[in-house]
């Protein structure tokens, strides 16, 4: 990971790309019409619509709706026109961002428009609610030490109905990390933020957690600070403690304090983690106007923050330095236990 690049160094390495993007942007020219022209377009549309409508439909209420729909329609058209016009610039900015990620770590791939699949997100066990709108962006993938990982921004929402029965809920908006363990484990362990105990107090909260039918069995751990922040569910009490050693619990408390909120799970030989969307992870570079050096530098610093977070989770939780004893027992099982006792007691 290269975190030593300073602002001047970065901008000098990217100056050609930034210049190219800005040249194209200049060629496209103005994309937002003059407000006066927009007003004229709206009036013209309304007049045309009034003429086209049958006279019996025209009353005050219908006219108000017609004006509202026309204004929205014109704005939507202009927005889509702007997007189409700026698409080549957007593509080039995305390439620029991928290049910036390569400067941080050349082994990492960064694809702005891609994200981790919904079934992987659902299999993490970190979100108990179900929604119907899943979207994302900013996929970063690669290998850190021995550990393969993927991280992307995810937005998960639930929206249904219309009018008065319209329901909208933002279930999750943040970053989602999947990292492969270089070891095997059979169980399923989920570490969630402790809401029940903090909200209802120790006794009622603990009872609710113990009798939570949505999750596996509650695991009560020895670290009181960890227990105050997190609640752990697992289908294997020993494996949960193996994965959440005293050191890992301390690291998780630190990570939680650093990133405000973190939940993790260990399922199917993978570590899953969710982090909230914070300003320090804002990676976008505005491109409606000319690209500004300050925005490029801001995005680069945030990319660094994101990569450091991935690295902190992978390294702090020891994903790189674990081995499975079973494999070694098999690979080194060359000595019969009867022989060696004699040799050693000579």
């Amino acid at each position, binding site marked *: 990971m290269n975190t030593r690049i300073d602002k001047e160094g970065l901008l000098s390495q990217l100056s050609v790309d930034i210049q190219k993007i800005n040249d194209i942007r200049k060629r496209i020219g103005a994309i937002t019409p003059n407000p006066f022209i927009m007003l004229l377009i709206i009036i013209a549309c309304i007049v045309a619509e009034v003429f086209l409508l049958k006279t019996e439909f025209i009353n005050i209420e219908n006219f108000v709706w017609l004006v509202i729909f026309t204004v929205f329609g014109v704005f939507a058209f202009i927005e889509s026109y702007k997007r189409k016009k700026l698409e080549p610039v957007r593509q080039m900015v995305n390439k620029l961002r991928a290049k910036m990620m390569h400067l941080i770590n050349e082994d990492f791939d960064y694809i702005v428009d891609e994200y981790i699949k919904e079934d992987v997100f659902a299999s993490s066990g970190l979100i108990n609610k179900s929604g119907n709108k899943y979207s994302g962006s900013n996929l970063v993938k690669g290998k850190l030490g021995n550990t393969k990982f993927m991280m992307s921004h995810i937005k998960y929402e639930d929206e249904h109905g219309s009018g008065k029965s319209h329901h909208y809920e933002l279930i999750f908006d943040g970053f989602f990390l999947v990292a492969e363990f270089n070891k095997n484990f059979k169980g399923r362990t989920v570490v969630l933020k402790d809401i029940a105990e903090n909200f209802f107090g120790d006794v009622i909260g603990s009872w609710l957690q113990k009798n939570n039918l949505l999750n596996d069995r509650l695991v*009560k*751990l*020895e670290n009181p600070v960890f227990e105050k922040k997190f609640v752990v569910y697992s289908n294997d*009490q*020993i*494996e*949960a*403690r*193996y994965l959440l*050693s005293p050191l890992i619990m301390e690291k998780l408390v630190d990570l939680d304090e650093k990133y405000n909120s973190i939940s993790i799970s260990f399922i199917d030989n993978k570590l899953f983690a969710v982090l909230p969307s914070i300003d320090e992870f804002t990676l976008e570079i505005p491109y409606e106007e000319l690209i500004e050096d300050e925005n490029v530098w801001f995005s680069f610093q945030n990319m660094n923050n994101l990569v450091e977070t991935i690295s902190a989770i992978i390294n702090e939780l020891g994903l790189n*330095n*674990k*081995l*499975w*004893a*079973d494999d*070694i*027992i098999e*690979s*080194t*099982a*060359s*000595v*019969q*236990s009867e*022989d*060696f*006792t004699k*040799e*050693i*007691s000579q």
Partner: protein
Amino acid sequence: MFLIFLVLVIVAVVIIFSYNSLVYKQNQVKNSFSSIDVFLKKRYDLIPNLVSVVKAYMDYERSVLKEIVELRQKGMIDDISKSDKIDIDRNITRNIKDLWGVVENYPDLKANQQFLKLQAALNDIEDQISAARRAYNASVNEFNNATQMFPSNIAASIFGMKPERFFEAEQFTKEVPKI
């Protein structure tokens, strides 16, 4: 009369529930200890390989290896008590820790890939044993609380259920070798 009958029924129900809860918790303690046994067995399986690799390098410090081997032999006996198993585990953990200290004086051994793998495996098993100990202690804690808290302490004293011993292990600070 009805009141006395009602009180007796309530007392009987409380004792039955308390007894069932105690039995459930006691079984959890037993299950947790069986899991520790599985991991201890895994460690015993690795010790012959470790000794075989190490003895070639450590001519003058065989006493450490000898003690590990003897403890292993004692630990492998089927009908030893839970208390003895806890003591043997504690001693093996301490001896292996001592061995890692002695190995520092043998650069050739430290560079041996087979040894490094075994050391990593033993450290990993120690992590598993430690997790199993913690799970066992959590079960013991829950059971012991139940034997001391009202009203389950009444059922515990009627049925002769006594608090279990915690599995206190030596702190095993280890260095995971780079392989």
